[in-house]
């Protein structure tokens, strides 16, 4: 393979964003109530969204 190796940023960029969003969601839902719970759950839902996106768009 002639393609150059990806850097750490390229490898861990997206996973790091999902990691941080998940943590904010997990902790946020603990201090929030009602509608805000939905918002924080959605942040944790970034895990599922990223997986579905990858399975559709990055399948080859």
């Amino acid at each position, binding site marked *: *393979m002639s*393609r150059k*190796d*990806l850097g*750490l940023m*390229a*490898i*861990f*960029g*997206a*996973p790091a964003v*999902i*990691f*941080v969003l*998940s*943590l904010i969601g*997990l902790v946020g*839902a*603990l*201090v*929030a*109530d009602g509608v805000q*719970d*939905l918002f*924080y*759950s959605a942040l*944790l*839902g970034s*895990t*599922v969204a*990223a*997986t579905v*996106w*990858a*399975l559709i*768009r*990055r*399948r*080859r």
Partner: protein
Amino acid sequence: MKTRTIRAWSWTHKWSSLVSTLFLLMLCVTGLPLVFTHEIEEVLLEQAWVPANPDGPLLSLDAVLAAGLALHPGEVPAFMSFDEDRPVVNVTSVDPNGPAGAYSFEPIDQTSGSVAPPVAGHPVMEFLLQLHTDLFLGLPGMLFLGLMGLMLVAAVVSGIVLYAPFMRRLPFGTVRASKPARTRWLDYHNLLGVVTAAWVLVVGTTGVVNTLATPILAYWKSTALKELTAAYDTPAPTGERASLDAAVERAKQALPGMKLQFVAFPGTDYSTDHHYAVFFHGGTPLTTHLLTPALIDARTGELAAVAPTPWYVKALSLSKPLHFGDYGGIWLKILWAVLDVATIVILVSGLYLWLAKGRRRRQ
């Protein structure tokens, strides 16, 4: 990364996973229905019920306690808790000479003193919870599962490190679906593993903290609550205890504005041998998980102390919702279930990848 470094992380990932996979699978499979305990029990235990005297006066807590204990002669009171949406007080008692943890649980109608239908504690859910908590082995089982939780944390951390060499030529999320099964499943394993990492780490570490509940509470009692018990040599005998009703009223005065959650009787994990520990929780989403006990001398009925819990008991309290996922509404629970299933896929694909690698080597 140097080959030697990769090999060390590989070794860590392989062995931390192999040692714990079977137990983690059990935890994921039993954990899946447990996420929905409340919803499942609502269906399984649904029963139309109205209190005997809906508008009548409520019995005193002492009378309720006596009614509950009368159903289990020879047992001593352990806990008393309060239903939120019906006038029912739950009396938990225990045989002082029986096996540890073998509790009797009676929901008592506070308007009549007769037994009310249970709204929690369905035998199937209790079975799953016990298996999930300690494999029916008590404290050793809990601590063992805690060790498996630490293995999980090691597997996730080493997995994240190994993600780099595996993905150095693949953009995020690549799934080589047209390649042989081993490649395909490696991609699924890496993708699911890396996106669920934060959730698995939080559920894993809070699970480990929960397995330490017994030593944490024992430490709290032997340090922070120790001064309170210095005046007495022998446990407060059941026959010489002050009114429970008065004790709870006294505790309420000491913690105005907080909500009564449960009473721990003398001699239980949550109290000393000499006090009614009356536990309250706060009113905000966060403080509803944080408990503050008022300790009432069981002999005299005097307030002994309001004992705000130290950080490690607070950490234990917050570990429960963060592990069970029951703190943010139904959508959070559904996510908990989806991520639990994703974890099962990660565990099984990891096992498969290890087996497939071994087979290829032997060929």
